[in-house]
């Protein structure tokens, strides 16, 4: 069971998570918040122990484990600036990294665009959904999936999976972790409006792929080159045969 009082006591935000919903089971926390008829309050958080239709990017699944993982989504529908949307995306993964570092002193690595790794294995993933009317963004839902207390993983993963328990060598408190992530997330939201470059530099500092030879896999196939940097908008700058290309999406891996 998720102990809401424990979560609430450590929550130090003004907006994010102040409106909080807990579900034993739901189709998808992102889908729930995307449905306008459900919740309209900016900063609302929906947490579910089990998702029947947990999603990753395009068709991929995300598996939640009752009482062992943290699966939640945040609704943002105020002051959204389309030009900052990628910074928000990177910032969400940065918030998770900062929370894990702060609570467990683990060495966290960020993988473009927003995977969170410990010891080269994936401990958390993020999927964002947005709704725009024409060129105006009306809402963004930031979905987080965090492996907290899973003792092991079976099955095949694109990137090997791990949990905080496996890395930290003991059980961790999900309530405390959630409040910590939301605290950092709200700070990052405030930071985005003030100075985006701080978020970009904090993100870069945790990305070990910059400067490395990488492989990018997308629907068109594979391409090989160098992870030059991320640009001011958060896109990956990919260098191949002297030509710099801006990458919008794709699976990035180190080329060995």
């Amino acid at each position: 069971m998720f102990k809401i009082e424990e979560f609430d006591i450590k929550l130090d935000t003004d907006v994010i998570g102040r409106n909080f919903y807990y579900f034993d089971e739901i189709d998808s926390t992102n889908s729930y918040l995307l449905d306008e008829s459900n919740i309209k309050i900016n900063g609302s958080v929906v947490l579910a122990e089990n998702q029947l239709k947990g999603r990753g990017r395009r068709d991929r699944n995300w598996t939640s484990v009752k009482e062992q993982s943290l699966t939640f989504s945040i609704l943002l529908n105020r002051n959204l600036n389309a030009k900052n949307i990628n910074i928000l995306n990177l910032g969400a993964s940065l918030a998770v990294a900062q929370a894990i570092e702060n609570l467990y002193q683990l060495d966290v690595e960020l993988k473009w665009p927003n995977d969170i790794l410990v010891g080269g294995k994936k401990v958390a993933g993020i999927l964002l959904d947005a709704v725009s009317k024409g060129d105006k963004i009306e809402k963004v839902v930031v979905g987080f999936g965090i492996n907290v207390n899973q003792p092991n993983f079976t099955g095949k993963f694109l990137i090997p999976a791990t949990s905080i328990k496996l890395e930290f060598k003991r059980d961790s408190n999900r309530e405390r972790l959630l409040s910590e992530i939301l605290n950092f997330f709200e700070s990052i939201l405030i930071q985005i409006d003030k100075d985006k470059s701080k978020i970009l530099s904090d993100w870069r500092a945790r990305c070990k792929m910059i400067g490395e030879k990488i492989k990018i896999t997308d629907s068109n196939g594979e391409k090989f080159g160098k992870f030059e940097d991320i640009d001011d908008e958060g896109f990956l700058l990919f260098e191949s045969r002297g030509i710099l290309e801006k990458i919008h999406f794709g699976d990035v891996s180190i080329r060995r």
Partner: protein
Amino acid sequence: MDIALLKKLIKVVEQSKITEFSVQEGDLKVKISKNTNSNSFQGFPQPHHFTVAAPSVVEAPAKETKESVPVSAANLHEVRSPIVGTFYRAPAPDADAYAQVGDQITEGNVLCIVEAMKLMNEIESDASGKIVKILVENATPVEYNQPLFLIEKN
């Protein structure tokens, strides 16, 4: 010369009375001209053509289209992309497209998805009417404010 600058130049020419414009930077020569003779349909700015003499750094003109239906009225509206990303006409690779040319849509209907860095942005129509053109090919990149759909308003 980068694509962004090129696009800016095209926009400047587009919004001006200039019909032909050329610029040279190093060995890259760019000529932008408005083709005022080939009218595809009434009441909408004609497609602009530009030719580039040198490296293959230029994409096809954004307004070149694959699908269209004849248009009777001049009451046209462009649905534009809010973000830079990749344009998808369907929610998943094997799913049906959200919208087709000829579809009657109402404001708020989902027309497409633009993806950027694991953010899936559903674009709803900001007008009601009939889709007369889909201006972007599926799974190709789009820029800020790039027109995606052309709608003949009711």
